[in-house]
């Protein structure tokens, strides 16, 4: 609403320093800047997964599409390992929030413990995803066999790449903390990391639902979307 109010301003009428309400914070607040950039970046990621999803839903209605769940012999009828991976990512998300809280309290040992937990759970998620890929290949669900397989590998791969990007930023943050960052700066950076981790966790939940749905569910979604 603030934006709409700003857009109604008549700049030719007023002179002076503070006639308006949307004055930027001055001097630059780097924390706000990083948060703004991250929000835009999350918007970009959203568009990427949204577009993949649209193409996927359209493809679910083609004659050669075979869902990966529904029948007993299909790999995700029992998606136990994916639930396990989801739990890892959830735990990583929780431990990064804890790390942020401990950073606020300046509790060094707790920070180290929670940061380590974040790294371990995230890596467990990635290795779990790789394990699923291997199992799919071993069971004959190759990437080219069926569009559902192709999309599974593609979407989980793109998601994993985003997680790996997050890990790199996270590692840089830890590295800087070990040398120069103050607790306040660490808190600010972990806040952003936490936002990113939560977001990728929700994206994963969405992908999990999407990629492990059965043919009937896809039919219903396609009907609703008009495919």
């Amino acid at each position: 609403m603030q934006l709409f109010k700003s857009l109604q301003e008549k700049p030719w009428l007023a002179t002076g320093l503070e006639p308006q309400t949307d004055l930027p914070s001055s001097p630059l607040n780097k924390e706000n800047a990083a948060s703004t950039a991250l929000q835009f970046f999350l918007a970009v990621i959203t568009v990427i997964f949204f577009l993949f999803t649209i193409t996927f839903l359209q493809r679910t209605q083609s004659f050669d599409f075979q869902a990966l769940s529904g029948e007993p012999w299909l790999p995700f009828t029992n998606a136990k390992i994916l639930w396990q991976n989801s739990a890892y990512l959830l735990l990583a998300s929780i431990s990064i929030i804890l790390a942020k809280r401990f950073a606020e309290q300046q509790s060094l040992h707790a920070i180290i413990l929670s940061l380590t937990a974040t790294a371990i759970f995230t890596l467990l998620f990635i290795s779990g995803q790789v394990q699923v890929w291997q199992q799919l290949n071993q069971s004959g669900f190759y990437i080219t066999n069926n569009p559902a397989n192709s999309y599974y590998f593609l979407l989980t791969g793109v998601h994993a790449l985003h997680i790996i990007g997050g890990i790199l930023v996270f590692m840089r943050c830890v590295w800087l903390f070990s040398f120069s960052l103050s607790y306040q700066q660490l808190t600010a950076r972990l806040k952003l990391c936490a936002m990113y981790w939560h977001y990728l966790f929700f994206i994963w939940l969405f992908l999990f639902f999407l990629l492990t749905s059965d043919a009937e569910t896809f039919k219903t979604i396609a009907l609703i979307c008009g495919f």
Partner: protein
Amino acid sequence: MTKMDNVAIADQVDQSSHPSTFLSKYIWSQDHKVIAIQYSITAIAVGLVALVLSGMMRLQLGFPNEFSFIDPASYLQFVTMHGMIMVIYLLTALLLGGFGNYLIPLMIGARDMVFPFLNMLSYWIYLLSVLVLLASFFVSGGPTGAGWTLYPPQAILSGTPGADAGILLMLASLAIFIVAFTMGGLNYVTTILQARAKGMTLMRMPLTLWGIFVATILGLLAFPALLVSAIMMIFDKVIGTSFFMPAILSLGETLEHSGGSPILFQHLFWFFGHPEVYIVALPAFGMVSDVIAIHARKNIFGYRMMVWAIIAIGGLSFVVWAHHMYVSGMNPYFGFFFATTTLIIAIPTALKVYNWLLTLWRGNIHLTVPMLFAIGFIFTFTHGGLTGLMLGNVVIDLPLSDTFFVVAHFHMVMGVSPIMVLFAAIYHWFPLLTGRYLSNRLGKFHFWGTFLGTYAIYLPMHYLGFLGVPRRYYAMGDTDFIPESAQTLNAGITVSAIIVALVQLVFIINVIWSTFKGKKSGRNPWQATSLEWQTAQFPPEHGNWGEQLPQVYRWAYDYSVPKVKDDFIPQNLCPKEVEYLASDKNMTKGESNATF
């Protein structure tokens, strides 16, 4: 704090952060101005390659079979590379990477972008994308010849030039470019939202910044569509998936693909492709508004409407994409929907054209070179826009689709028009970079050569389109419905194209000569109000603002304000310091604009 963090001087002066070595000053620079110049030089260099490619195409079309080095395959490769380079690697990179980088911090009163390191990285990744693209000229089979739209299945099937390494390098290059753009784009929007000087409200920003701001948001949201389609096509080509590939027979051989949808690629491509038109056009709209206001010594007519129109155009640009696909066999109701949205987008666009004209009306027009190019833009853009209205209608588009009419339309609207603005902008902001003017005499020659020359190219091209001359054809052969005169026209167009290309050499000579020997401009040579001309040192140095950031007291269009001594009031001039004419010394703060 690390050394890298010290270089980020968006809000503070840190003498230790000023680069001192040649490498840190000009190569691995994090100064937005140097990065802007790096972007610009790279974009113009690769644009010249595309210009040469268009010359080769025109040689073939104008004088078929006269040149042995142009065969059908290389002709298609020239077409493809020319289109892609011009749209993505020249126009997008120059307008946003070049002008966006240079002008954003200066115009909002910041010292630099908020993430200078990311900004530097953005340029080097952009350069990598250009090198990957150009590398395709040197691989076996050459660059892709699939047309700039890269439609599958033909883009990745043997039989199409460059269907092996060429197309892969193109797709990889696009993906790399998008990574670079995202880094730059996040910087631009964040800097505009978070680093504005005190008093610089959003509605006090010059329209140049509004155009760049909205175009960047469009880019951030539209380029993912190209990225998604590039990734999926790479999978189809390399791994053998069938995202876009249907069951198909290629050169008598049944391929492994099955069930994919080529039309899906078209939707994705144009979901990016149409906003891309406005990613190029909106910064141009913004810059031309400022050039017109400054050189007509008049406030821009309808500032708020101009801002709203930029936002409206940006929003609408996401719901018109399928007007590029009327011939793909879509549902007629779809065609109706997209024709309607396409025509609706003409409303805010026309509003902008009227406002430019009304800004000129009774203005104190100075026919400087930037102004000539700006006025030239109004002609070419209106021309291209009107033919766009024609093509937006399904019934007109169907017979004209894939003819030279379409080529003439999109070159007028998103080729010549943004280029006219780019030239206006270069002539206008060149003194800010160098402290010198570009040569006026050479500039005028450049303008008339370009303006008249491009009309000589594209006006007859519309007629060729009406005759039904198809685009992307290497040669017409013995086609009954195309008269002999069409060939004569084609030869004329080619001669004009060569002249226009040569005129651009005059521009390059002008830039090089004027950089060192041009007439010194002095501070604020155009007597502009916006902040970029009010820096402590001129031309601005690293950090832009010396000890203190500027404070902004007014909008960017206080020109010819009644009863004020000068015909412009800089944005950072305190109301108490405004000098009034002798008889009006009793005027008080705030009254100066009362007549507007």
